[in-house]
């Protein structure tokens, strides 16, 4: 049991802190779910990348620093503690990149990763379809073989960032005759500006186009943009969604910083005693998440893997995030309804947490069946 960092890690922390102190914008950028905010966040990615801070855990040859998991955690703590902007490249970095590292070719990595690291290409995910939300195996969009590649057709939705992004990745049915619906799916990357792609932005609750529908009509994708073997998409994607729920989506630093902001708000509001326990729980929860993650990272560093316990992780942060924001709004009292107060966008964002990346109902089923060994029900 050891929570100390190496001298290298401490030096890395100091370097990150110093860089962030010098570079983090003094005023928050506009919402990244707006066109102007998207551009500002893309510019911030370039600024990060210029000093190799955008993808610290990647190999140096793709723009990273070969940082191990503990240095990644250190960076995230410093990043959010510094109040740095949200990451517009999050989907690419945390979902697509791990897949490319595990299942892509060297050619694909060399072609895709550097522009992802610099924010030059921002990636959107394209998993869901109208009739396939929690039930991904029900996907219908198809990719049909053509000369030198595939033609994508169908209807994707809830594609985060797609309103302003450049490229996307997702699963497409390449073998409609496959024995089981999980089979016959292929993992593909495609261009959102390609002929045949129609992007229809969808406003979330606060009206901002945080995601989009994609209508695909014979969109050509060259063979080089297939990840892994055709027909293996489900297996590859499951590894990716495991990652999505695991370490890489919600770093502890994010919640440590949020809890800290909540404590400041509580103090500013006169330490309202009726909210004391909830504020303390936010602090305790952030610390618990930090330490839970440290244990997972330690297992990972020791050669272990993250399995169904990533569902615990997802349940925890998604509910934590809502509770934290609700507490903040309560501290604001009637001012909490103002859309221009600093907690408003985070609150709206938090509400999506229990829905995406596998609804919390599904996650609880997984925890009960895989971690506790309870019988599968009809749900």
């Amino acid at each position, binding site marked *: 049991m050891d929570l100390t960092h190496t001298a290298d890690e401490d030096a890395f922390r100091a370097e990150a802190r110093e860089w962030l102190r010098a570079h983090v914008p003094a005023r928050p950028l506009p919402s990244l779910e707006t066109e102007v905010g998207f551009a500002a966040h893309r510019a911030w990615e370039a600024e990060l990348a210029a000093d190799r801070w955008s993808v610290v855990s990647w190999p140096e040859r793709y723009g990273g620093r070969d940082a191990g998991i503990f240095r990644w955690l250190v960076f995230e703590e410093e990043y959010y503690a510094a109040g740095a902007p949200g990451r517009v490249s999050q989907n690419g970095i945390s979902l697509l990149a791990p897949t490319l590292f595990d299942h892509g070719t060297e050619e694909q990595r060399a072609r895709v990763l550097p522009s992802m690291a610099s924010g030059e290409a921002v990636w959107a995910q394209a998993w869901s379809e109208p009739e396939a939300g929690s*039930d991904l195996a029900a996907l219908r969009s198809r990719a049909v073989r053509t000369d030198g590649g595939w033609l994508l057709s169908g209807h994707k939705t809830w594609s985060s960032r797609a309103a302003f992004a450049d490229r996307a990745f997702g699963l497409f049915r390449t073998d409609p005759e496959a024995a089981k619906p999980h089979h016959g799916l292929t993992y593909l990357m495609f261009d959102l500006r390609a002929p045949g792609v129609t992007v229809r932005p969808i406003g*979330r609750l606060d009206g901002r186009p945080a995601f989009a529908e994609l209508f695909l009509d014979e969109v050509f994708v060259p063979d080089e943009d297939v990840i892994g073997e055709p027909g293996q998409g489900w297996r590859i994607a499951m590894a990716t969604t495991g990652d999505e729920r695991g370490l890489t989506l919600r770093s502890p630093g994010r919640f440590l910083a949020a809890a800290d902001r909540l404590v400041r708000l509580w103090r500013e509001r*006169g330490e309202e005693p*009726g909210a004391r326990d909830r504020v303390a729980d936010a602090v305790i929860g952030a610390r618990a998440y930090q330490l839970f993650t440290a244990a997972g990272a330690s297992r990972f560093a020791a050669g272990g893997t993250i399995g169904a316990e990533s569902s615990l992780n997802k349940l925890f942060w998604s509910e934590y995030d809502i509770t934290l924001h609700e507490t903040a709004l309560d501290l604001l009292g*009637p001012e*909490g309804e103002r859309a221009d107060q600093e907690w408003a966008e985070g609150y709206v964002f938090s*509400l*999506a947490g229990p*829905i995406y990346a596998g609804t919390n109902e599904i996650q609880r089923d997984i925890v009960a069946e895989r971690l506790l060994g309870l019988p599968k029900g009809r749900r």
Partner: protein
Amino acid sequence: MRFLLTDEQQAFARALDTMLGAADTAAAVRAWGAGDHTPGRAVWTRLAEAGVWSLAVPEAYEGVGPLPVETVVAFVELGRHAVPGPLAETAAAGALLSRLAALGHDTPAKRLLPGIVGGGTMATLVVSEPGPPETGSAAPRPEAGSAAPDGPPEAGSARPRPEAASATPDGRAETVGAAPRPEAGSAAPDGPPEAGSAAPRPGALGMALDADAADAVLVVQGEELRLAAGHGPVVRSLDPARRLARPDAGGEPLAVGPAVAEAAGYAARWAALATAAQSLGVGLALLERTVSYVKQRSQFGTPIGSFQAVKHRLADTLLALEFARPLLYGAALTLRTADVAAAKAAAGEAGYAAARTALQLHGAVGYTEELDLSLWLRKARPLRDAWGTPARCRALVLDGLGDRPGGFGG
């Protein structure tokens, strides 16, 4: 004892439901949020025709009131149909002016009430001072045994229960939760009234709802009622159909004196009750829509409404709403501060919980503004906090207790 709606009251609810169901309120809400008040004003006129704006106003001013139970009935329907506009505020303005008239200041009533009742005058209202502080602990607590500092001494028992004497007691004392608290163990018995909390008092929002649409922006400040001449820029709420703006200082004074503060307290209870009823209606609509949705939405080959986790969450939603409902009617019968506060807390929380449930069970589609569900989802939380946050209401409930909670007639 017949704690049920009468046939007439039920018919009134059905009539409003039918009228609003045909009025395309969803389009009116969306237009309202975009600053186009035309369709909303059309609904407003129909509400006037249905008599909604006459419920707080006595016959002398062309009303039929005060009818708080009917107000609850109406506002549940307004919530169910997500009607936009300063609804509770107009009702409360009617109550304020009526009360003021009863206390001897009838000029503003004569001038404004007929327009309010007829639907031609959409009003909004801000009570800025001595407006309800937003945390219970920060409520002024007079020294042990003394009466409320500015109000008349309370008649009655050794432990005064201001609500018991009259259905409309001194509004100000009630609004600020200043019922005398002589018992031992209360905080800071020897200190000045405000000792025990150096907390800043966030106070009310200080903004008027939909001032840009209203024909009359009424502002109560201390013992003065005035008609603001304009307002500052519109600030968006988490519900875009709630447009907030700070009234300009100055404007035309309408009345001055202790009666203003008393009438403002009465109006604040009326506003809280109406808002609570809207919360209940919003929650009921969200539940109804979600029940329909989970019956038809299938995942894993079966309607998600057959999953036990979904069923239980919806059952809990119904439970909270159905136990908030009688609190509303009970509060309408007494208009006591503590009763209104209890109803407001319960209905506000139940409506918001219904929104959380509706969003979760709709999944991603519920998170979009284009699904009409969003029109209700976004209302739930602002309504929960307007005219008394749950925390403030809970504090008022405790402040309003006598030596025993007591039964109906006990």
